[in-house]
């Protein structure tokens, strides 16, 4: 069992947990959201900057467990530079993988380091941790897209 838990905490996850890619809050941004995990008080404030339809930057400040921090780090790597539509598809795929109880084979070409979280999906209590940053991103993307339409 301790092997399972060590597999869950894969090297990739621990590396992202330490490195926290794209962390810190930056200007400018079109949307800023705060999401919490009510059971543990983990929190993320996330900003999204768009350049036309491209995601120019995702910046954040978060407190949370290694799973939520690493997942957010992976998410920023994946979505920055993509179009909103592409990023939303990735968000959808990652969320599906997390709700699969670890039973689907994730597409490494698309989810890259994100595939490491398939092990976390076997632990239902931790799925919320892995999705915290992603749901904040989704919310921010919807808001930013809405704001942009409002201006046009």
């Amino acid at each position, binding site marked *: 069992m*301790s092997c399972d838990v*060590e597999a869950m*905490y894969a090297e990739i996850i621990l590396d992202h947990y330490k490195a926290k890619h794209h962390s810190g809050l930056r200007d400018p941004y079109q949307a800023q959201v705060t999401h919490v995990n009510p059971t*543990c008080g983990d929190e993320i404030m996330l900003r999204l900057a768009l350049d036309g339809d491209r995601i120019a930057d995702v910046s954040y400040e978060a407190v949370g*467990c290694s799973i939520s921090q690493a997942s957010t780090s992976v998410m920023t790597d994946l979505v920055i530079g993509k179009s909103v539509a592409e990023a939303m598809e990735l968000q959808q795929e990652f969320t599906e993988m997390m709700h699969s109880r670890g039973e689907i084979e994730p597409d490494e070409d698309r989810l890259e380091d994100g595939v490491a979280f398939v092990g976390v999906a076997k632990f239902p209590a931790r799925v919320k941790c892995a999705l915290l940053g992603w749901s904040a991103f989704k919310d921010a993307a919807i808001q930013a897209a809405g704001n942009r339409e409002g201006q046009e």
Partner: protein
Amino acid sequence: MPETQLTTAVVETLGNGYDVAAVRADFPILSREVGGQPLVYLDSANTSQKPRSVIAAISEHLAEHNANVSRAMHTLGAEATEAFEASRTKLAGFIGAARPEEVAFTKNASEALNLAAHTLGASLKPGDEIVISVLEHHSNIVPWQLLAQRTGAVLRWFDITEDGRLDLAKAEAEGLINERTKIVSLAWVSNVLGTVNPIRQIADQAHRVGAVMVVDGAQGVPQRPTSVTELGADLLAFTGHKMLGPTGIGAIWGRYELLETLPPFLGGGEMIEVVRMTGSTYARPPYRFEAGTQPIAEAVGLSAAVDYLTSVGMDAIAAHEEHLTAYALARLGAEPGVRLLGPSDAHERGGAISFTLATADGEQIHPHDVMQFLDARGIAVRGGHHCARPLHERLGITASTRASLYLYTTTSEIDALAEGLAYVRDFFGGKR
């Protein structure tokens, strides 16, 4: 070897006839494995495990005596009513109530505290003050916040000292309890810090200014011999599932003269006297507070739980808890990277032991991660804010890991926890 000394010391102090192995044999779940390892259940402040007698009592009631209470007049109805009322009587005796009618059943301690807030709140006016503390469970915060919003009353807070006890000196200096105070509501025992609050002393203060003393007994009643008169409370909320009973049942005790003055909480069946289209009159306590069909089988289970606790003896349970707490504070406190929260002395302290854990480099390890690694070793603890977010904020942290003890906990389970923590610390410190 400090470890060996500790073990010896505890064996000696526990040489008082408390047979933890015999107690454990009564709890079927304690012999199961989790992830191929023997279960080490250190989450009793969250919910306690159930002895065989409680499980059997519920099953027997449902198999042989099931019917609704009071309204069903047939034989089964009479049997169910008798069992339900017998549970009330037993519970009343267990907490030293003057009469069974002082105990009303609720769903849990949260509902009991909401009942208190709603019914006491009916007479509050803007500018009246309600006093709680920063170490409360959300159940003893949110109902009062809602009440303050509804009535314009002001919510005021006891702070805590560095040692995790109520800061009585600061309260005194601030005039926290004064002539505007109408309600004081405090936990008897903190679910995070284990602190046992000086309820008697604060109740006396509250009573001097004419305020009502409400006590959240969710952690205290399961652990300590309870006498509501000695405690000094006017209302006491507690729950069944933390004292070996099933979920879905709790209770509120109140001085009868006070209960009689309170309006109903929920409206519905069996809480009425006469219902007319123009208006209704209400039953006398405790029935006034028991709208709709009650958790009957659960009451029977709770009654069996009280029997079990009584047979072991609440004095013995409290003594066992204090010995274990002292052992755990010493054992966990000696683990590098562990920062214990709450009073460092086991005296006047319950068996909820919360802590943070850091690697050798001083990097904090998140309680979710600690919990996950311990779970892989069969050790059940809670990681999070334990429904006490303001307290964690006051302590300058977002979350903690909590081990909580009960009558079936052993010193070797605490050793397993300490070894588990060393493993987690080394894993995240890059030593594995």
